[in-house]
């Protein structure tokens, strides 16, 4: 439900508000305006409509989350399947890489990467994706280790199927349920990390609305205009909770183990 609502808000943002998210809509700025007619969630420290920025911020968060998750998924699943299927030296090497990435302090790595890469809408998902794939790799590898001993895989190998075909046709479908759950949880993680990066001033470029940045930029206004901080904070929480609930729901439906 929550996720659906967010997706609808993100998709229909232009219909839900008559303002441009970057436009300064207040004629004479005299501090942030309280919620009221015309501006249901008030205006911010530049005179922009907060509701508009939260609605468009949903687009930012969802697309950053989805892109980051997709990238993690592709890298993680590929490495997981290859590693689990071949085993031996390949497995050892790839898992060593996973361990290496895992030992690096994630936040520090994120900060360094986003400082080095030029600011753009793609930088943040790229950075999150490049750091977040290890969980996928590990889980998928575990799954594949057990799948590859199954009779149908052994049979395929006996019939002379190529490695690629076995991995693509026989192993990949087997790991999908687990991956779907992880993807939902990864999405919530990515939204959270995006908010964190934006909070640290390293998120998407201005003036693209971002929930994390809203919390960060407006925190000093908490006593004066609490809605500026509370509303994006609520949005972040809902996004993270929503995808977590989806993940757990899927776990129950697909009957996969919770990791």
């Amino acid at each position, binding site marked *: 439900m929550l996720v659906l609502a967010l997706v609808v808000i993100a998709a229909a943002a232009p219909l839900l508000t008559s303002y441009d998210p*970057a*436009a*300064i809509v207040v004629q004479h700025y005299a501090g942030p305006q309280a*919620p009221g007619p015309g501006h249901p969630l008030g205006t911010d420290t530049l005179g922009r409509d907060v509701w508009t920025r939260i609605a468009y911020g949903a687009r930012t968060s969802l697309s950053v989350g989805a892109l980051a998750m997709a990238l993690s998924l592709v890298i993680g699943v590929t490495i997981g399947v290859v590693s689990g299927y071949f085993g031996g030296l390949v497995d050892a090497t790839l898992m060593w890489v996973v361990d290496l990435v895992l030992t690096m302090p994630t936040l520090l790595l994120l900060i360094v990467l986003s400082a080095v890469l030029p600011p753009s809408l793609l930088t943040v998902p790229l950075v999150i994706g490049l750091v977040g794939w290890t969980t996928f790799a590990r889980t998928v590898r575990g799954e594949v280790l057990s799948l590859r001993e199954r009779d149908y895989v052994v049979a395929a190998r006996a019939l002379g199927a190529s490695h690629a075909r076995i991995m693509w046709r026989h192993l990949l479908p087997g790991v999908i349920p687990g991956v779907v759950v992880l993807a939902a949880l990864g999405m919530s993680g990515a939204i959270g990390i995006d908010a964190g990066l934006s909070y640290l001033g390293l998120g998407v*470029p201005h003036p693209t609305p971002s929930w994390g940045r809203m919390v960060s930029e407006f925190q000093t206004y908490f*006593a004066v*205009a*609490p809605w500026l901080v*509370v509303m994006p904070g609520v949005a972040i929480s809902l996004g993270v909770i929503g995808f977590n609930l989806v993940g757990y729901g899927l776990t129950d439906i697909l009957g996969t183990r919770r990791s």
Partner: protein
Amino acid sequence: MRGVAGLLVALALASGCAVPLDPPPEGPAEGGGSPRAGGTFRLGFPEDPHTLDPALGYDTVSWWGEQMIFSTLVDYDDGTTIVPQLATGWELRDGGRRVAFTLRTDVRFSTGRAMTSADVQYSLERLLKPALHSPGAEFFTGIVGAEDYVAGKAPHVSGIEVPAPDRVEFALTAIDPLFLHKLTMPFTGVVDRETVERVGDQEFARHPVGTGPFAMGDWTFGQRLRFDRNPNYFRPGLPLLDHVEVTIGVSEQTAWFQYQRGDVDVAGIPSAEFARVIADPRYAPVIVRQTTLRTTYLGLNCEMAPFDRREVRQAVNLAVDKARIVDLADGRATIANGILPPDMPGFDPALQGFPHDPAAARAKLAEAGITGRIDTTFWVQRDDLPLRMAQSMQQDLRAVGIDVRLKPVDFPALIEGVRRHGIVPLFMLGWEADFPDPSNFLTVLLHSKSRGTNNNTFYSNPAVDALLDRADTLLDPPTRLRLFHEAEVQIVRDAPWVPLIYPTAVSVRHPRVRDYRLHPLRPTRLERVWLDS
């Protein structure tokens, strides 16, 4: 789900109501009473001063501390007029090539030793010592013999003469209308040679000894800094305060809370609270304001296309809504039309700037032959107000067909970036005058010879250079100011800058604090400040 809905309603309700503004701390009634000695004045700073060695500090906080401990030959009064401090008077000879000072004979260091002209000579020669790498040395290379001294060819600077213990004379290689102003800078603070030689140059920054109103008390790095009244101070009865105590690690926001609790005596007002504070009559008596010699500007790199064309730069000038920027600065500023700020000699209130006129801006771009949209990058300091101002301009420029990518960077990176050729197309910076003379803006920031240092727009106009060169060596004030004005008018027309605002400094004081004034040019002095009870 019901729980979530309940939480949402609760948050919505909570977020509707702002926390009411606390009153200023309680204290004695305003007005009346004669100055009273004693007490401890308390402040909170985010960081330690960079240094307290007068030869090394070149930032507001360091200068604030150095002014406590050191004195200079001459100084400014409450405004920008030069008055004697360690000197009793001065005389220009040789048409201005020689400046002769007579010194007070009652000046002692806080250690008790009497100060003489030899100490003045020692302090200036120390400043010029290459090993010290003083950022202030460049101001004094016009003294005769300074170059030989710097090159190690002479043991002393021949142009600093000390004919008697109470006389110092400077011989200059050329007429320098700014020489007296340069001597007001804390760089020339007279240091105690005995202490420097005992602790060494390095340690002197932490154990400074001078002739100023206060002496170093205790400095626990990163925690607190205490100044004690200098009992040997040459002005009888001053300073009035016994101690000045600075707590380090206090952000602007924290200092504000501590002020409201009555734990610090002076604080800035956070942007978030500013509008409410100004509107609140309870705060009216404790607000301290001062216009400053500062201009904040949007710099356009005259070497980078399309800003190498005057029409494009003029279009940017026409596009920017400066009134909104003043609003964003909570009204703590006035609109800037020219380069020179209001308290600067030569400031022309009637100077024609560019109005906010997006249609005219588009016409200018068309005139320049620009048909498509312009795509460019704008470097801005990663702080609340600069980022808001930049986003406001981003919208203004978008409206006339200029798409601006903002690049938020830390201040050192910004300064580093703008000094290099071809890196930063647009940037926002402020400049605060070192001394109240137009050259400190026009020559330092816009003469072609300043490219690579402070002329970060790489603006170059030979006609302007010629005007500035002539003005810089003249002693006759009216002619100088006329030449500077001509140069300023031409610069505004050439539009390497969009002059944005002249900021105003605003602070609040505890009601017990008396005679606390902000200075247009220098950090606040606490010499005459006193505490009522």
